[in-house]
């Protein structure tokens, strides 16, 4: 599937398009199909996001998984500071990133 991500304009937080607005959790991301770019430009113009871009991802029982490691690290946070991750998930989350 295709999902849309970017950074919140004012806070810089990594955000994911969740269908009716932005979420800080990648698990909320929804398939944007072929509308990603159009949505990105509209949301940028509405000052809700900066640097929005479309990426490939898959969905399985663990949630949404971006295809590229860079986006998984954006979704998770720095792998070397698990203490900073907003929602500390399972202990072997590092494996999810890699």
């Amino acid at each position, binding site marked *: 599937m295709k999902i849309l991500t970017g950074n919140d*304009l004012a806070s*810089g937080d990594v955000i994911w398009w969740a269908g009716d607005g932005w979420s800080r959790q990648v698990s909320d991301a929804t398939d944007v199909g072929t509308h990603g770019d159009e949505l990105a430009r509209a949301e*940028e113009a509405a000052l809700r996001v900066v640097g929005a871009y479309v990426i490939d991802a898959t969905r399985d029982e663990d949630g949404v998984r971006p295809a590229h490691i860079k986006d998984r690290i954006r979704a998770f946070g720095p792998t*070397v500071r698990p203490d900073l991750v907003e929602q500390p998930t399972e202990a072997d989350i590092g494996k999810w990133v890699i």
Partner: protein
Amino acid sequence: MYRYDSYDQAIVDARVEEFRDQTQRRLTGALTEDQFKPLRLMNGLYLQLHAYMLRVAIPYGTLSGKQMRKLGEIAGKYDKGYGHFTTRQNLQYNWIKLADAPDILAELAMVEMHAIQTSGNCIRNISSDQYAGVSADEVADPRPWAELLRQWSSFHPEFTYLPRKFKIAVIASDDDRAAMRLHDIGLKLVERDGVVGAEVYAGGGMGRTPMVAPLIRDFVAEDEIISYLEACLRVYNRYGRRDNKYKARIKILVHEIGVEEYKRQVEEEFAHMRALGLNPPVEELARIRDFFAAPAYESGLSEEIDRSDRAFALWVDRQVAAHKAPGYAIVNISLKPIDGIPGDASAEQMALVADLAETYSFDELRVTHAQNLVLPHVRKADLRAVWQKLVAAGLAEANLDLITDIIACPGLDYCALANARSIPLAQKIASRFAAAERQAEIGELKLKISGCINACGHHHAGHIGILGVDRRGVENFQLLLGGSGAEDASLGQITGPGFSEDGVVDAIEKVTDIYLAERESGERFLDTYRRIGMKPFKEAIYG
């Protein structure tokens, strides 16, 4: 230390207010990101992997206690409680909110700091030797020169849009602790017939085309250095490649037209500049120099260090360097705890180090290009007290210049340009070699890791260097041997095919084993490598 005069302060304050207005206009939509991006970058504000990142300049790596305390306060108040000291003697905050950025810059301005020219195609923060002013072997203190260059290069209208970024380092000792020849321009102060002047090196750099800068002039007098550098920059500004970002650094120009031709053009321009009489007045040089006068060292101090505590003695042997004043010592503070993050310091650690500077080091601190800190003037009698406080704060690792004193860029954990993560690899290597006896046995070994070809982690200049690459979406690491950023500068050679993260740690172990087996007495890793060459190492690794 240098103190801002009313011009410096007025310029910095005005810049803060200008940026406040620009930020406001961005947040209300009057500016698009395309319009705003160059404005925020001029104030050191990047958009990185997780958030905005702010890069703060620490001119020639010198800080007061008050400045360090402020850096710590900002980390606690606006960031997630820490900052990252970089190979360019700057500090980076990783979690900045755009809406807070103007307030942060205002707080920095209160302690005579800023983030101006820490990004963009301009002359960046001038770097220098962390032992400036305190090492016995220097010709003169390089910092007045660095400060002069800071004033000259700040907002220099002609050099605001160079073909590419421009980095300058100034040193004054035969021991190069600033990787001087890996800068766009490097100055080494020398004395000739009782007069201090500079050797000028141009066209060094790292990145995808690393080069060691050649000497382009063996002496420029102090009062002409500005004119001469102006000439160097002019030739570059005019002929540097603006058509190709990857060929835009001065090193490519010097390489393409040749050192002799570049020198000739600079000399021609210099002759022209001289006629214009643009040199700073001698009184200004004297005014700057006064700020760097030695502090009031006490005389008759004891040289005694009580070495009865073994851990303390080990730390002294590793982290403490000779000071030019009797009874004093230079203290290196490691930001490389074995399981830590190279160059990171917490808000509390910054506050503690600020206190130590004020209490024990004439209110002075230094930041090193190897991502460590220095208390430049500590009485030998106070070393133990300083050490105890560092131990309590997790800052007493004794590994200066050893295999675990790793330089690592932020890599894919933080950097949007990265191919691979640098920090977890640094941690794995450090824990593999953690035993103090093993590190001591291996001796000086400078290991440097970059997460991509931009080489922020100086991998080309590592005795052992590691470069992260992307192999079809999987992190992969190339190994380099034989680089040096010191006075014997050289560029490392790639061993061969790359490795996984664990594979590269194993390879390094094989490399150090070969060194230990082959070394002759007194040889560092680098010396053995230079003597026996790549082959035995390659055989051991790929066997």
